[in-house]
């Protein structure tokens, strides 16, 4: 039984949609073609698109929640991880065969989680996971599980870069990143804020899996785009059951209730 969580802050970045509000309106914002990685300047290092996207959405969500990123437990999900950096390293190998040490250390899947932790001096546990089409669902599962067992608020972040054409020809995908700051709903542990939540999330579960075992579709677009229906539902202040796995693979869904 995965208990409930309060939604305290939301962040989103996609090309043309630099915030949850812009996504809800459905009208792209001119010039919003790169994530706002101002916070990344603190890190004084070159960062990947994935890290910049995570930085942007994490800052949005933490600001709305009123909880600094130094105090949030971090769960990051990405189906593919640091793909752009990977291709850069593959190209280095084809060149003189020597890799950049900075590029290598930032190529790990938990680069975004680690860099967030370092930038904000956050010594809380952080994790980084991947689950193909279920990446969004598994990030929510882990975040809500952490909350169920007590402790401070959690920031759940999902992000995927576009697939590089060189190693994935024919797959045009859109970069997507989103973040939710989640807090405990009732019970023990007051958490860090007492502000009214934007919504309540509950009953994350798999729907009957009759069609799921044989030919479950692999990710054909950005797997993290599976969070967009949830972002819309939250932005519009609606209630209802929302799928958090991509269309055609509705294994996981969650109930959204207005606060």
């Amino acid at each position, binding site marked *: *039984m*995965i*208990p409930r969580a309060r939604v305290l802050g939301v962040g989103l970045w996609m090309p043309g949609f630099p915030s949850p509000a812009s996504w809800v309106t459905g009208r792209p914002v001119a010039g919003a073609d790169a994530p706002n990685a101002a916070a990344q300047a603190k890190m004084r290092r070159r960062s990947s698109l994935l890290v910049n996207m995570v930085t942007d959405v994490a800052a949005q969500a933490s600001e709305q929640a009123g909880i600094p990123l130094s105090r949030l437990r971090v769960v990051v999900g990405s*189906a*593919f*991880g640091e793909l752009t950096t*990977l291709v850069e*390293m*593959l190209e280095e*190998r*084809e060149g003189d*065969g*020597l*890799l*950049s*040490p900075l590029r*290598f*250390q*930032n*190529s*790990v*899947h*938990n*680069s975004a*989680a*680690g*860099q967030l*932790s*370092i930038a904000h*001096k*956050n*010594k*809380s*546990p*952080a*994790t*980084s*996971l*991947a*689950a*193909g089409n*279920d*990446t969004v669902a*598994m990030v929510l*599962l882990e975040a809500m*599980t*952490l909350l169920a*067992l007590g402790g401070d608020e959690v920031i759940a972040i999902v992000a995927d870069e576009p697939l590089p054409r*060189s*190693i*994935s*020809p024919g*797959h045009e995908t859109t970069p997507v990143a989103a973040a939710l700051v989640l807090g405990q709903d009732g019970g023990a542990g007051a958490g860090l804020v007492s502000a009214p939540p934007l919504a309540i999330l509950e009953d994350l579960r*798999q729907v009957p*899996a009759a069609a799921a*075992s044989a030919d*479950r579709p*692999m*990710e054909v677009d950005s*797997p993290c785009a599976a969070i967009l229906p949830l972002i819309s539902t939250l932005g519009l202040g609606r209630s209802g059951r929302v799928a958090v796995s991509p269309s055609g693979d509705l294994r996981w869904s969650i109930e959204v209730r207005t606060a």
Partner: protein
Amino acid sequence: MSAAFPAYPVSAYAAVNALGTTTRDVIAGLHAGRSGLGACPLELPFETPTGTVPEPLPALPQSLSTWDSRTARLAVAGLDEIMPAVRRAIARHGADRVAMIVGTTTAGLGRTEDAYHELRRTGSLPQDYELHRQHSFGAFMEALRRVTGIDGPCFAVSTACSASAKAVGHAQRLLATGAIDAALVGGVDALSQTTLRGFHSLQILSPVFCRPFSRERRGINIGEGAAYLLLEREGDAAVHLRGVGESSDAHHMSAPDPTGEGARTAMAGALAQAGVAPGEVDYINAHSPGTRLNDLSEGLAVSSLFGRPVPVASTKGCTGHLLGAGGATEAIFSIVAIEQGWIPRSVGSDPVDTDLGLHVPTARMDTPCRNVLSNSFAFGGNNVSLLFGRDR
């Protein structure tokens, strides 16, 4: 002290690595203090031994051939011995009440390296290469899901070298909330050009066999392998997962906090969760892969938390650093220490760096162990410590 978390029985385990292709061979090699390190099978512009899984590595079943990568082959090969226990768990609890959580750093990276090389050479990717099915973190998990029939939460954890220890923590939490009744947790990683060249670029790859905790250390060796543990809510296993401690250094992407604070926090967290005092720990399976910075950091953490000279050994001289498979593999080594009553010798550590102030056994110690800590520290300052013990 009282436990903050229930203890969960480890119903079964299995490991494949340079020490052998069966768990029995792996444990026998560890017991004998044998090193599985040898010549690297990959062509590299520098010398470094690796912990390579002995060939032949079985091909994937035909039905899974589109998911083929060395990582997937290792992952599936490692399942063989634990599958009877997994089937029993599925029959007992239901497929949707069993989770599968596996740590990895590379996923199918080796396959993509070969494909990219082909692309640069011929202008085309190999016809049978597909990023989604051979490279992505979800790809080998899909192969595992099909082999096991597990239908509960399935995900890969990729927190670099702590990944499969982290997987154990994820499973413990899901068990504690009641979301699942059992979890197959583990780790898998295969040797790859990028990993070896990357660690070489950081100047921490040893040109000779690694020497964890030794004053003659020259760096790390990379290994490959797969390891799994089956955790269940109830059972009559001899050894239990008693605590998991996690922390972030918030210091540097690839170097540990020199004060050892993050490592100490993780170890203290595992003890606190189990209600176990430092004096009740009989052995620490160290992370130490063979770098000076890690030895100093982990040494400080251990000596500041434990007021007595608890034995601290690294098994990376036997297997190499198994990266995403390391945490689960060394969890098994810790469980075996409790089950069989011996602490492995820390292969390569002699002569020990006495400045660390640690008790590093350079010969096997045949002694009962009640509680054993297993440390895994990683890029991103990601620290995990697992506590296993006889008691619940």
